[in-house]
């Protein structure tokens, strides 16, 4: 028995060495014949088993089989190694890991992405795009929207004035009046466009900025329709998990007026620096169209009701893409803009 095992260890050591150092597949085949073939020493050792005492045969047999299995495993793994090495040597002809020949990738501006998505969502529920002038009269910008020029509400709209008593619109809301004067209900419009306020550039203000206005007017539109429409948009844009908070506010051209908060995109409502710990982010001002506005455009306020809303795509783009400074949107830096290329 002892001799048997000594021989077995000898064969095992030698065979492992020879198989492991085979350089080619031919060498490997020779090694297989030498250590596992019919004339191999291991085969001969196995044939000696019957000569051992009966009680020692099972353990000796098991030992021998373990060695046989080890040889088989070694042959297999060495064979894979040799193949891989030979593939690697062929590489100079074609290296698929070199960089591809690329083309320049274009991109829409992040504000455009947000504006288009918002307009698309509202299109699903029947809103079409409208447009209006950026140079306005005080009449359309304020008075028709139920905002007397000396009302404290105009303080929040620090206005750029032009010669001839004109101004740069401070919001997209004048388009409400322009559309209603020309058209009878039902009205369902969204109005993206530039607005102007005398706020110097800083991290969160720009003197010219995008806004999207929305307006729905018909018989029988109620506060419930208003809430449901806004919630439809919020869930489509921010995700089904987003929740909203409607809270009282004031705009001269809506009543009841509301400001709408959405649960913070970053912390999910737990409170973080983006939401100043409140868990909410303000995204739009809105409300039921004030009857005075209907009177100003010649609609019967007893017959028609409606709602309007306004929001800032740049601000929403800042939230969505985690852009820390609004000025990045208006500087044309290609390192910024190319980040918005379709992936």
């Amino acid at each position, binding site marked *: 028995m002892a001799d048997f095992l000594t021989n077995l260890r000898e064969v095992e050591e030698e065979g492992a060495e020879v198989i492991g150092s085979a350089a080619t597949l031919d060498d490997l085949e020779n090694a297989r014949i030498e250590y596992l073939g019919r004339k191999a020493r291991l085969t001969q050792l196995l044939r000696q088993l019957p000569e051992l005492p009966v009680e020692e045969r099972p353990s000796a047999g098991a030992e021998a089989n373990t060695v046989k299995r080890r040889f088989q495993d070694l042959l297999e793994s060495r064979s894979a190694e040799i193949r891989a090495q030979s593939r690697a040597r062929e590489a100079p002809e074609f290296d698929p890991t070199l960089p591809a020949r690329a083309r320049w990738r274009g991109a829409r501006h992040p504000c455009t992405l947000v504006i288009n998505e918002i307009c698309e969502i509202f299109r699903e529920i029947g809103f079409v795009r409208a447009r209006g002038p950026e140079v306005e009269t005080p009449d359309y910008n304020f008075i028709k929207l139920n905002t007397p020029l000396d009302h404290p509400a105009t303080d929040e709209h620090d206005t750029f*004035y032009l010669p001839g008593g004109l101004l740069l619109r401070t919001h997209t809301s004048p388009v409400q009046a322009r559309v209603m004067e020309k058209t009878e209900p039902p009205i369902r419009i969204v109005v993206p466009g530039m607005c102007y306020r005398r706020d110097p550039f800083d991290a969160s203000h720009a003197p010219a900025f995008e806004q999207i206005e929305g307006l729905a007017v018909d018989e029988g539109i109620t506060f419930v329709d208003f809430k449901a429409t806004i919630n439809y948009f919020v869930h489509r844009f921010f995700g089904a998990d987003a929740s909203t908070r409607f809270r009282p506010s004031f705009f001269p051209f809506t009543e009841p007026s509301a400001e709408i908060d959405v649960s913070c995109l970053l912390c999910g409502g737990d409170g973080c620096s983006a939401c100043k710990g409140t868990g909410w982010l303000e995204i739009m001002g809105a409300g039921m169209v004030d009857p005075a506005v209907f009177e100003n455009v010649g609609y019967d306020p007893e017959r028609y009701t409606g709602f309007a809303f306004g929001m800032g795509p740049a601000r929403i783009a800042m939230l969505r893409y985690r852009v820390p400074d609004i000025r990045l949107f208006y500087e044309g830096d290609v390192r910024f803009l190319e980040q918005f290329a379709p992936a």
Partner: protein
Amino acid sequence: MNVSYRWLQKLAPTIVGPALAVAERLTGIAVAVDEVIWLGSGLQDIVIGQVEEIASHPNADRLVVCQVNVGGKSTAQVVTGAPKVTQGAFYPFVGVGGTLPGGLSIKRAKLRGEYSEGMLCSERELNLGRDQEGIMQLYGDFVPGTAFIEALGLDDHRLVLDITPNRSDLLGHFGVARELAPGGGADLVRPDFPGHATVEVELLPSELEAETGGVRISIEDTEGCSRFTGVVIRGVTVKPSPEWLARDLRAAGLQPLNNVVDATNHVLYELNQPIHAYDLATLRGPEIIVRRAKAGEKLQTLDGKERKLNPDMLVIADAGGAIGLAGVMGGLATEVAGGTSDVLIEAAYFDPGRNRTGARALGMDTEASYRFQRGIDPQATHEAMARVVNLILAVAGGTVEGAGVDLNPRPTERLVVSVRHSRVTHVLGVELEPESIPSYLEPIGFETRQAKNGTFDVAVPGWRPDVEREIDLIEEIARRHGYDKFPDKLGLFRPTTIPEEEYADVFERLRDFFVGAGFLESRGSPLGPAEEGEVQVLNPLSEVESHLRSSLLTSLLHSVERNFAQAQRDVRLFELGTAFKAGAGPVPDERLHVAAAWTGAREPAHWSSEGGGGGDYDVWDLKWLVESVAAIAARGTELRPVDGDGDEPWLEDAFAVMSGDGQPLGLAGRVPNDRVEAPRWAAKVWGLEVEIVSRRAAQVTYRDLPVYPPSDRDLALIVPTRVLAAEVAGVIRKAAPDFLDDVSIFDVYEGESIPAGTRSIAWRLRFRAADRTLTDAEIDAAVKSIASALKRDLNVGIRGA
């Protein structure tokens, strides 16, 4: 507006619960609470110290050595430079190892040889106020060693409210408490001031003039001032306010000044009635009058500034002229200060519009003007007067001289507004119980009376000048009901009859084109300097933002320069937007433009080829880009090279986009070096700008696919250099039979093997008939007639022929 939670609870004991929850509720039903601040923050280590002994410092004239009782029998030695430290007085003290709100931690220090074991603190160091001048003396009875937070009642929260212009009633604690108290106005109290039992203050009603305490008061301008109450108090002692009063003011973010002024501010912040106190001794003569300012009249206001007045402004005047800007700011000469003993107290109602005009003209915006402009309660000046008189008596002593006056030339009554239950349902979309309408309105001060047919007549309280119409009441009902309680059910809607905006489609096609061509969309500021625009802004933020841009390309070139500054050699930008041109009348022309600016390599660098693949952009890329853009933005236009005759284009190698009737609609070309600041390593900069005149994208119409095979013939033509390729193509097309399918150029050559003054242009003519396979003979005949026409019309010959 800052609100102290403790102050609210004094006025409405039924308001309970955590400050954050109260803030949330207020946000939900009335106005947003931006911030909730715990006032004790950072003050945990501060205790009350009483200075027991003051000794001069042996080694320093300006320092003193104090022994401070800091609780029980322990004292701490404090070296201080504070000039006014008083023996026996109380001060906030922080000992060794303690920390100030700013995070500064106190260590044992030796000042000029004397140990200091802590410090007496100023308001500034405790984040309590702006007063840096000295350490903060505390007035009242204190036990040394007591925690400062507890002793001063700083276990309070400040709610920072974002008041909307309609809710002037929430500019006082009383109004906020009314909104928040579960029982509304019924829960409100006006508690006695500490150490003083409230006395009744008699006010004699009158119209235009009356006398009180030896002062004759009259209203000359009843449009500017519709109510004026006045009371004279004699024998007041002006001194620092007691701690409870100072604390209330500090909690609301106000700086205590002296007891009389603090009393007026306290009532301002409690009842939203601005109050002014005049030092009676400074009046020139026994009379004051409310009138328009005179042209050229001057007044030095409390802030020390000399104001030039005009008749739009409302003033309070004595015999010598204006002593105060009504409802904006008092005059310096009549200010209540240390030596004041007799005071005249004013509580008035000034017209919002007049106040606004006057304050705006002077560029002034004060606590008082802010409130008058938003409208205070014209029916409550007498109540505020009673309150402030009691407060002055409580904190400054003195006695009221006789009855006060209440000039009320134009008394107002509660406005009555009707609200229909049916209309509430119609607007809000939910059917509330008719009986519930009073339950929403009554608690916040509206009086309701049911008329017939589900209509309620509602009397509006004077503090709600914003409520004038039925819809205003519907808003009150909606917000008191709670916006969040309305259901969220998307109903049916009728489609609008308005067509989609006519340029939206073209805008998107242009974006598709540029994005496909590897360009990045930019959005520049529409405001630029004078040389970049024709339309002037009258009140610009700066010189460089004084005009509306007339070209998008100009601002894109600025972006190219900024990218150069960031070492970006490859830049491709486009923009869609409005260009502003001077109009025929005063209204500027707004034109929709598309512009692009690009420079650098045509393709990203690749290892397989040197120098980045296709090289840098050149004029033929320019031509393709402007052709493509014009085809989308201005269909039916023609591209014309600009040779510099006539109008000199500012671009070089320029192409003009011309409309059918010869109007220029765009320009494209190479940007000259003097128009863009480019570093030495930069490639040529190219630009284009085209007006968008096409509405909606081109309609595609299908053409039958060819059934028969084409035959190509190549012609190498020797073309005199003065003849343009387009002319050659024109002659070919004209001379060819109608089975000429296509004409293209595949090579242009100038050089040795062809005659001087000519170039060789290789053309490929493709012939194909729609109805048969062409024979060689037919094609040969066609080529022959083309060749002879070229020779005849342009002196163009076939090479080698």
